[in-house]
């Protein structure tokens, strides 16, 4: 409740100057800021409560584990944000991750001497290729992304299973330098998390400040209007799916580096967690609003809930239920805020007339 109060207070402060030129933009930004703020508050409260119960929760090792644990989900959530903002969704990310992770292992098996940057590039390229398949099918078939990516969720996973044929790839099959990538830290921060941070920063900056980034929001708000105002909707949506595929590929390589042991089931069911992270992070499921920062925070929050439940000695079986409740709370909160804004905008336009 205090979270919505914060929003209300901010908006009251915003109320006096009814600047006709740009009130909507300021308002939207303010709302986004509120969402990220409320996520940070929730995260801080969670960490605080957990730490009060067990002070080892804030120890260096525990924080390191936490950052390591959320890095992959953060990368996927940021990619998913790009897609959802355009009023699409990509359910195939878990399968892409699994496929790329297995391919990375296979690459090292086939050519043990491969330097890890090459493996990284190959993984990202393979992910992007999967994205091309998604984007291409959506563009050619003119059907909703939900259906196509539901199909490729199965197809990519099936290819993965077919390729793996029950085999498993172990850490011993991969070079040390590559596996170190998954555990190494720089100044106490895991490399994986730094990669995720870079992804968040780049995507966040792009969405906020680039013309094509803003156009993604326009497409998500109203595809028909975006088309009429000269935005190349088809190209943008295609590019978004390729970018998301590439990010899922990146996540797949990092997954291989982190876990070492790979079979064809890697990343199964991850897609719903990714969508959940984005939704909790304030990315509206029907497009047009949300930020990469929010989605990343959502991913961090979901991961932190998992670890703190363990520390709080709450039955780990509760974790998924809490995640579900959180999604419902997040979209409920969004709805409430949207209703208030709508009411206020109505009031304002009536005043203006």
């Amino acid at each position: 409740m205090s979270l919505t109060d914060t929003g209300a207070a901010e908006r009251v402060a915003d109320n006096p100057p009814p600047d006709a030129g740009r009130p909507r933009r300021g308002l939207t930004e303010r709302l986004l800021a509120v969402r990220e703020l409320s996520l940070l508050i929730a995260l801080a409260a969670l960490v605080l409560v957990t730490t009060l119960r067990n002070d080892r929760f804030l120890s260096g090792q525990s924080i390191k584990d936490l950052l390591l644990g959320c890095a992959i989900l953060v990368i996927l959530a940021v990619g998913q944000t790009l897609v959802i903002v355009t009023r699409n969704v990509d359910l195939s990310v878990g399968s892409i991750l699994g496929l790329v992770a297995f391919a990375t292992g296979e690459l090292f098996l086939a050519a043990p001497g491969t330097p890890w940057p090459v493996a990284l590039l190959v993984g990202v390229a393979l992910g992007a290729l999967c994205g091309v398949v998604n984007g291409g099918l959506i563009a050619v078939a003119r059907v909703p992304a939900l259906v196509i990516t539901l199909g490729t969720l199965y197809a990519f996973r099936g290819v993965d299973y077919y390729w793996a044929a029950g085999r498993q790839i172990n850490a011993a099959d991969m070079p040390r330098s590559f596996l170190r990538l998954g555990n190494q830290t720089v100044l106490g921060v895991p490399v994986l998390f730094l990669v995720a941070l870079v992804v968040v920063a780049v995507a966040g900056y792009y969405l906020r400040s680039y013309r094509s980034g803003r156009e993604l929001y326009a497409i998500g708000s109203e595809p028909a209007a975006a088309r009429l105002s000269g935005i190349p909707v088809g190209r943008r949506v295609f590019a978004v799916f390729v970018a998301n595929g590439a990010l899922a590929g990146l996540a797949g390589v990092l997954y291989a580096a982190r876990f070492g042991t790979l079979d064809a089931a890697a990343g199964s069911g991850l897609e719903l967690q990714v969508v959940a992270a984005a939704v909790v992070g304030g990315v509206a499921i029907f497009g047009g609003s949300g930020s990469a920062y929010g989605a990343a925070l959502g991913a961090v929050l979901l991961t932190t809930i998992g670890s703190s439940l363990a520390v709080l000695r709450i039955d780990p079986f509760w974790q998924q239920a809490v995640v579900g409740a959180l999604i419902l709370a997040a979209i409920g909160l969004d709805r409430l805020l949207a209703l208030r804004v709508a009411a206020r905008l109505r009031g304002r336009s009536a005043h203006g007339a």
Partner: protein
Amino acid sequence: MAHDSLYAAPPSGADTERPAGRLAGLRGALGTWDTAIVAALVVAVLLAGLSVQNFATGRNAQFLLLDLVPLALLALPMTLIVVTGEIDLSVASVVGLTSTLMGQLWLSSGLSLELICVLVVLIGAVLGAVNGVFITGFGLPSLAVTIGTLALYRGLSFVVLGDQAVADFPASWTAAVVRTIPGTSIPVAVVPVLLLALVFGVVLHATPVGRALYAMGNNDEAATFAGVSVARTKFWLFVVSGAVGGLVGIFWTLRYASARGDNATGLELTVVTAVLLGGVSIFGGRGGLLGVVAGVLLLGVLRNALQLADVDANALTIVTGSLLIVSVVLPNAAADLRARLHRRRRRAHLSAS
């Protein structure tokens, strides 16, 4: 030029409005889609019967049909929900939760199994009603809500039983579920499925309620103005979906003689696949129950036949995925071709005037 790019741009997300010519074309394609899917089913059965050993045996038919009961039952309410333009991704989690509740009640309550079954269906209906309240009461998107309850209900089902399983159901009950109609190899369980399919079919295709569902799927607002109580109807659809989920929970528990938290995990995507394969549009407003039943059967026959032909069960997901993609790409491509000339003419006419 501008019109050309307009044409080339694919629809993104829930793009519902379409030119009348296209709609007519799609409707034409749809009539043939039902026929096409039934034909594909017949061809698949014949091919499998001729070329796959042990496919055309009574025993195999029994298992094939038994395996399809949950999918077929869940696909019935899902069809109606998708026709109204909504979706329910929580169905498999409802199955899981009702299954564990049934196990827990049997284990500790001392109630008779008959009473427990009634309770479980009622609980399923309540779970569906929770979806309905969030979606119609608070006006939230069903995709986001049911992703939330997917996690919530699955989480709760782990809370109920943890990683334990309840397996000591009376043998008379577990045997009754898999029993066949005397003299045939058709399971008794198929009879209620057919009866329910008949009820859902009649409701959808021969009552004002069914007409209202299509009207909602095509345009919520127009349906409201036409006197359809959109919110109330959708609410009850989700309640029915939950109740059917409870029914499947009972069947699943008795069929495998095991109540576990992970029962039916991931089944929601197969259900959606079957419904879309059956020719129901994810945008709502189009599709029929006959196609869906044929779609369910086609999915089951293909998977069963390939499994008998020693294809790895997991790799079979390629088939599921490709079928789904082909099923949405083909009719749209056909409709596109058909509508192309007409639309060009229309557009030339419009730009001339």
